[in-house]
């Protein structure tokens, strides 16, 4: 069954099919429709919806709900996500599952409500304190807004870790056909770790404090091992890469623009391909290296090279030219601009 849905609504639909128990959030453009639809859809399904007094409250309400073994979510945009960073660190430290949706807008500061991808580092590198990682998935369509929300819940629960859906204003506001998920996600019994006010969980403890340095270090090592073990969950898509001379790489709505650019270049007989990471943490490192082998790389993003830095970091060899095409401030990069940069690189290398 299909529906013609807005990206933000698709997130709420995904959350419903993931079995999300509760939504705690504070409204902000361009993420508010997630709260609007959750407010409408959750109560008749017996799920909890609460408009929190601030983002800090929302993330801590999620900490409480997750402590009880329940699945909860929130959605916001840059300024609100910034406020949640302490809570993200606590969720990671106490090993609690929760899903945070960031429909990125323009920054820094108040910025504006146009699309940007400037929250990349905050999301992927962990904007809170301490040695932790969040799972980060980056949709590029309304369908993925839904499907990757489900996946965020799945991974958050599997690894007992916060997961972030890193979307942007384009994906939140656009409408496309959505194939509705079939059936609600099954989940494992959290009795061995949660605290929900019953005899089975009375002995359990949710906390992230270890006063002894050795114990705190052991906790940290255990977390690092867990993050390492997530690598097998890496997701990516390679489009027309096989015989390409130039590799475009982008995530989210930028990858849509690059797809159009690749098709246009191919129509001109120019051999370009696109590598799109779907998971930003864990990063699809091997897949990137396979796609980029022997090719020049054009990174396209709506931020100041934050994603480009990670591409460089993950490339085993960076002996070919690597360039950045980017816009900021709420301006979309146009297919024309990407084409211009790609043609220049292809001509320069021949």
């Amino acid at each position, binding site marked *: 069954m299909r529906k*013609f849905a807005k990206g933000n609504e698709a997130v709420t639909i995904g959350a419903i099919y993931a079995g999300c128990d509760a939504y705690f959030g504070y409204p902000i453009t361009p993420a508010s429709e997630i709260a609007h639809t959750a407010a409408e859809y959750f109560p008749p399904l017996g799920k*909890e919806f609460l408009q929190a007094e601030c983002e800090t409250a929302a993330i801590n*309400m999620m900490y*409480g709900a997750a*402590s009880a073994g329940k699945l909860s979510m929130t959605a916001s945009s840059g300024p609100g996500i910034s406020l949640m960073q302490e809570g993200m660190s606590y969720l990671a430290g106490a090993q609690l599952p929760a899903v945070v949706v960031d429909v990125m807008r323009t920054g820094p500061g108040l910025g504006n409500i146009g699309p940007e991808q400037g929250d990349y580092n905050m999301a992927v590198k962990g904007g809170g304190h301490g040695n932790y990682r969040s799972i980060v998935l980056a949709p590029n369509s309304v369908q993925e807004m839904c499907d990757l929300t489900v996946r965020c819940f799945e991974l958050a629960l599997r690894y007992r870790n916060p997961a972030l859906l890193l979307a942007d204003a384009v994906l939140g*506001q656009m409408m496309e056909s959505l*194939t509705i998920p079939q059936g609600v996600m099954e989940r494992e019994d959290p009795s061995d770790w949660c605290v929900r*006010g019953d005899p089975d969980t009375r002995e359990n403890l949710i906390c992230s404090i270890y006063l002894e340095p050795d114990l705190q270090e052991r906790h940290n090592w255990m977390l690092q091992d867990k993050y390492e073990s997530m690598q097998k969950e890496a997701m990516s898509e390679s489009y027309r890469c096989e015989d390409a001379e130039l590799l475009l790489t982008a995530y989210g709505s930028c990858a849509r*623009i690059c797809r159009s*650019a690749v098709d246009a270049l191919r129509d001109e007989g120019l051999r370009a391909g696109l590598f799109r990471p779907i998971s930003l943490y864990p990063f699809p490192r091997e897949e990137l290296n396979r796609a980029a082998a022997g090719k020049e790389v054009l990174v396209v993003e709506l931020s100041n090279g934050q994603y480009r830095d990670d591409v460089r970091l993950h490339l085993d060899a960076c002996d070919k030219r690597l360039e950045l095409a980017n816009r900021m401030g709420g301006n979309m990069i146009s297919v024309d601009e990407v084409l211009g940069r790609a043609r220049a690189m292809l001509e320069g290398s021949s």
Partner: protein
Amino acid sequence: MIVRSQGFYPEFERKAGRKRTTHYCAGCGHGIIQKLIAEAMADLGIQDDTVFVSPVGCAAFCYYYLDCGNVAGPHGRAAAVASGLVRVIPDKIVVAYQGDGDLGAIGFNNAFQAANRGDGFAHFFVNNALYGMTGGQMAPTTLAGQKTTTSPYGRDVVSTGEPLKVCEVFDQLERPVYIERVSVADSKRIMKARKAIRKALEIQKEGKGYAFVEILSPCPTNMKADAMGAAAFVSEEMERAFPLRLFRDRSGEEPPRPIEVEARSIDDIVSADYEGDAIDDLPDVRERRYKFSGFGGQGILSLGLVIADAASEMGRHVSWFPSYGPEQRGGSASCSVVVSGREIGSPAIDHPDVLVAMNQPSLERFLPTVPPGGVAIYEESVPLEATAPEGVTVHPFPASRIAAENGAPKAANTALLGCLVELGLLDMPGEELRRALVRSFAAKPKLVEGNLAVFEAARGHARRELL
């Protein structure tokens, strides 16, 4: 013989080394308060049902001692954590325990809002007029003139305000069921505190709502006194600013009734628009990029949506991307629609194959972006001052006039839909669009008839005048 306190763990194993003593300083109130809570939990038989949220600071280690489910919250956020808990385990007992810096300063709004919502938990607020574990700094509750590590000349009320009276503030709210201020400075006062703590937990057991108990408590270490001196400070100095009293007990009153929301199924809520599953590629369908533009309120976004819906119903790939934000509240609005036989790349459009413009700013802005071979249709009453790029076909269309003549003056967008159909720019049968148009008025059935009349009249006009 020392009688083991009920409600505490038999041995305090969560703290390495010491098995039977707490980590609190001699004369500290925390140990007494936690013992009162533990005994009350045991007496009420609620240990299995209780989740206790501990704060940061000295009481961060409540979970060493209290034999119930334990959650350690971030600084200031125990109330928010408890709010989250009670929302997902409403039939259980949730307790939040916070100090005065924790609750009165950083987390005040979370506590205040939880109280205002009447979230069903017992909220214990330990007021010792300073930050304890952090190092004796000034708290919102520090007394006027009191010296602390961050008020070394004494708390100056001119620059730092008066001691914050949390009970008195919360007493302004409607939803708290119980508010009392007590003290654990001596045994007589402890007996009253014992009663208040029990009452707050009983209210939870009975599911009656939010209960707040402020407990004045000595901190000999940071009050720079021995146990007796610290207790005297609490009774003689603190009680002047924070008088002990029962502010309210509404546990005998009926709580307000919630708004009933009728249960619905997921299928009902996530109602499908179309049969069938994922969209296949359709090699025969050419990709078309449409830009619809005009003033907010002219139905520009709806016009794009009707076309997108029709194409989606036919199993085509479609994206619809609006301008949004301040623009949609008065200024110009536009949306981009891409219809394709294959997966769509960019949903934003630089060069529309078809431009529909309903006002002059849009026409001037977007007409130069239409590529050769493209078509621009605009509301006839808009003066065309820009020059169309070479190879672009331009049609003025009397959309507003046709709409007005057919009794639906607001349906100029529908007239343009008819025009697009008739010019073959939508690559879809008119019947599909007619049906999509009807669907778009599902919530306003009275408008269907008028819009259909406009739609057909516009088709007729386009057929006669433009083909």
